[in-house]
């Protein structure tokens, strides 16, 4: 073990409580941002949350305090009391853009690589396991992005389609992976895509995946899903470069 380099030596340190509280807070924030837990919905009580997340009650309390401070949840006392979702995590376009500037093109490509890996497996298993009625429901979600307006609504419409597609695999792990990938990418994507044509394109690309699944053409579905991700990452890189090097951009025009 002494021969392990510095990075891997770090792996086996015990996780500090702060990190666990952050992890719980970020899991809940993601779920609320993607609309998996809706406005007005009541969260399970502290004891339940602590069991579900496998962390101490104090850790759950810390996490909830973070969300409360951010105005995302509210705790009411009394007979009809409890902790409720009252706000959406602030995903402001400037914050998202600065996140995009911080990411390198290599990291964006890597994000797309993982998305493609998950998407190809997702489409293959959805083909194995989904029924015609599942595809009908997916078809409705596929076009929702076309009618969405604004960052929040686009984020939800887009991620809902992809997470529902992942749900058709009946694999909890794949669905969790998709939720994580969506939380890392979808808000950033719609913070830079603001053309109605982009929404129409996304709707067409979603529909092409659904149509291929309906036709039971799995290799076509894989190709359409990969291409959809490829186009999104192309646009993200484009936006990243324009934001990071605006002065040089001018000479390209």
């Amino acid at each position, binding site marked *: 073990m002494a*021969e392990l*380099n*510095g990075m891997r030596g770090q792996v086996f340190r015990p996780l500090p409580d702060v990190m666990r509280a952050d992890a719980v807070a970020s899991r809940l924030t993601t779920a609320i941002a993607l609309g998996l837990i809706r406005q007005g919905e009541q969260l399970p009580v502290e004891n339940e949350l602590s069991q579900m997340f496998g962390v101490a009650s104090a850790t759950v309390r810390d996490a909830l305090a973070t969300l409360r401070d951010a105005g995302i949840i509210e705790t009411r006392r009394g007979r009809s009391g409890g902790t409720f979702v009252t706000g959406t995590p602030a995903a402001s376009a400037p914050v998202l853009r600065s996140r995009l500037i911080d990411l*390198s093109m*290599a990291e964006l490509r890597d994000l797309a690589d993982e998305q493609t890996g998950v998407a190809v497996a997702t489409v293959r298993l959805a083909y194995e396991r989904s029924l015609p009625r599942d595809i009908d429901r997916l078809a409705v979600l596929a076009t929702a992005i076309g009618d969405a307006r604004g960052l929040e609504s686009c984020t939800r419409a887009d991620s809902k389609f992809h997470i529902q597609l992942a749900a058709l695999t009946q694999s909890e792990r794949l669905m969790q992976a998709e939720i994580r990938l969506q939380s890392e990418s979808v808000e950033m994507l719609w913070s830079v895509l603001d053309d109605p044509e982009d929404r129409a394109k996304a709707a067409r690309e979603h529909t092409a995946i659904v149509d291929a699944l309906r036709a039971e053409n799995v290799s076509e579905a894989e190709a359409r899903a990969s291409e959809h991700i490829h*186009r999104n990452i*192309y646009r*993200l890189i*484009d936006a990243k470069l324009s934001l990071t090097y605006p002065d040089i951009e001018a000479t390209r*025009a």
Partner: protein
Amino acid sequence: MKLDNQTRFAAESLAQWFGTVYADLETLAARMGAALAESRRSREFLISADLKAIRDIATEFLAANPTAEGAGVILSPGTIDATHGAIEWWRHNEEGTNSKVLFNLTPDSGSYYDFENLPWFETVARTRHRAITGPYMDYGGMDQYILTLTVPLYIGDDFVGMAGCDIEVRDLEKVMVPMLRRVAGDAALISADNCVILGNSGRFLVGNRVRTVPEDGGIIPLALDDIDLRIVYAEHQDFV
């Protein structure tokens, strides 16, 4: 200015940048070779006390080359004893100081780093020239997505290994995208194997192979001794 002229201009800036790094590496190799020769004297093998000077020289190099993630020397098998070599590698760490990178050099153990079979070692050992490797995932080494630049290291006339540095792909972007963005089309720095090292748009993604020369563009080599790097360019194309 036409695309090919803009690309030629970018190729000059990039070649100049790489040329400076290689010149620094050759200075590093010369200083380390001299320090090792002085310390080893007439002994057949190097001992750990001989390697002490490497730290300061590598640290100076890292201070002068902030884009580099790590730097040091690799001593060929047969330099420490009949079969063993060594890696003396230093990296920038979060505190801004340098820390030594430890490699598993015990054969037959799980994460054994068989460096003598890796391209950045093998190429220099075979050609005795400068080499560039990557981009690649350095599993078992830096565990990062990097490029490795290496130059031969001599003690007197004996080839004993190499000096080199690692550059993280994400750090290279900051230096090179401004140069490549001055090409008003799609352009990318590619390796001798036609793999993209860095592009100026989403068209050429790092790591992907460029399989054909674009019809509306071309390829311009970087003027560098022994190093085969080129820029591929074409008219800008939106994702269709």
